[in-house]
């Protein structure tokens, strides 16, 4: 064994240990995860955009999001009802609260209240949309 090789293996060890620790601490979402806040629904019926009602929002306190729903031609979808879900795929648990759509604000905009993200990390935030054009779902990824 050369001195170089020993030093290299020691270095490799440090990197390996450090790397695993960092990985364990903030397990990132799988590479290629799309964090866009505007997405098409699963069956392509709608384009949905989400934004916190107030920026910056406090992750671990109750807050609201505005969900904007448009149809294929880009016009706002009225009279939708939206069910909200989500969770942390890496921890196998859902949202800590049960957010609900509480108001239709016009121009395809809906208020979702009661949102809270109790941990740092990768969250899924999902919406099931029921509206005259049909039912469809969309899942967003958030990095908090």
């Amino acid at each position: 064994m050369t001195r170089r090789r020993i030093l290299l293996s020691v270095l490799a060890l440090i990197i390996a240990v450090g790397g695993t620790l960092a990985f364990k601490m903030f397990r990132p979402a799988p590479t290629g995860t799309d964090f866009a806040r505007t997405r098409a629904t699963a069956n392509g019926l709608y384009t949905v955009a989400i934004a916190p009602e107030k920026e910056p929002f406090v992750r671990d306190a109750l807050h609201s999001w505005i969900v904007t729903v448009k149809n294929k031609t880009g016009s706002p979808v009225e009279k939708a009802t939206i069910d909200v879900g989500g969770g942390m795929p890496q921890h196998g648990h859902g949202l800590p609260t049960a957010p609900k759509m509480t108001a239709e604000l016009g121009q395809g905009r809906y208020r979702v209240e009661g949102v809270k993200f109790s941990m740092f990390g990768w969250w899924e935030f999902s919406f099931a949309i029921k509206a005259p054009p049909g039912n469809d779902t969309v899942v967003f990824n958030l990095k908090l």
Partner: protein
Amino acid sequence: MMLKVSTALVRSSMVALVALMMGACDRSPLTTEESAVVATLALGALPALPSDPSNIYADNKDVAAFGKKLFGDTRLSLNGKVACATCHLPERQFQDDKPLAVAVGTGVRRTMPLAGVAWGPWFFWDGRKDSQWSQALGPLEDQVEHGSDRTTLVFTIATHYRQTYETLFGPLTDLPAVAVAASPVGTIAARRAWDALTPAERTAINRGFANIGKAIAAHGRTLKPEMTRFDRFAASHAQGNSAPDNARFTQQEIAGLKLFLGKGSCTNCHSGPRLTDDHFHNTGMPAVPGLPPDGGRATVLKAIGADPFNCLGAFSDATPDQCGELRFMSQDRHALTRAYKPPSLRRVSSRPPYMHAGQFPTLDAVIAHYASAPRAPAGHSELKPLDLSDQDRQALVAFLKTLEP
């Protein structure tokens, strides 16, 4: 010769490795990411005490002083021997060092420490109360705690504290002509007596009862978390200063902190400056033989919604839009089976035993549980087994001990 050189080389590179780690400790023992999380756990990150819109007296100093008296007053109990302070001993972090609380009878859960609880939205291990004032009403009518009933309690206040009470809350009127033991949740006799009261009398009793809770809660809100060695470490670490003696961490404590943040995933649930996320988790706690089955939060979901003393009830001072935690609470019975609130880990090492029914006598036993992550007796544990060496376990315990003044 060759061998000698190699050993020497190995030894010198080991020395270099250790020096590198120690050097790192003198400058920054933590990575940037770790430092960022440490800052969120330190007392300095504690926000101002959140207001309690359901209790207009929450921050009234005179009401708090009255509440402090009630907290220690044994005349509020059936046998004249039990006060809140019987189980929540002020000199013992407001808990009693027992696996299960003992008063008029023996309870089914461990007494919780009280410092900083006002920052959380839910009270009790299963969070069956959504305000501190409504929480305080529970033990007063609990048959194994104070063992009293709301009508007797309001009469007790009228006898011993009428003037103080009326100055703070207004006249105590519409009480029944004579004191009776009456409550909608008590013994059969107490429930019959309650049914015999007029609606005006019931409302007057309920209002007086709620105000007792509001006074005790105003006192409860003054119990704040204390500065610990960990906070001093975090503060000097954040400023990049070389730590003063009382803030310095040993190698083992640093290692424990890193495990807490990293491999242990402890901050998944023990987050924020109170080291709790205030939500409910099944951590596979063993059931205690001899105790009735305990379903945790799943079994209290209905009761929370139906509680006349909740945030949306007639005795709450909040408007419905201020009751978000209640209106948007999770109803997921499956996920909430045997789910409990993580207590604050501040000062945890000096108040064994641990967990909702005192399941573990020591922190070593707690860590062993997290390492093995056993199946839950009901529902599903969120824990995954951890590969922790003896050294790792000792380091985690050493870190938990830094959460002391």
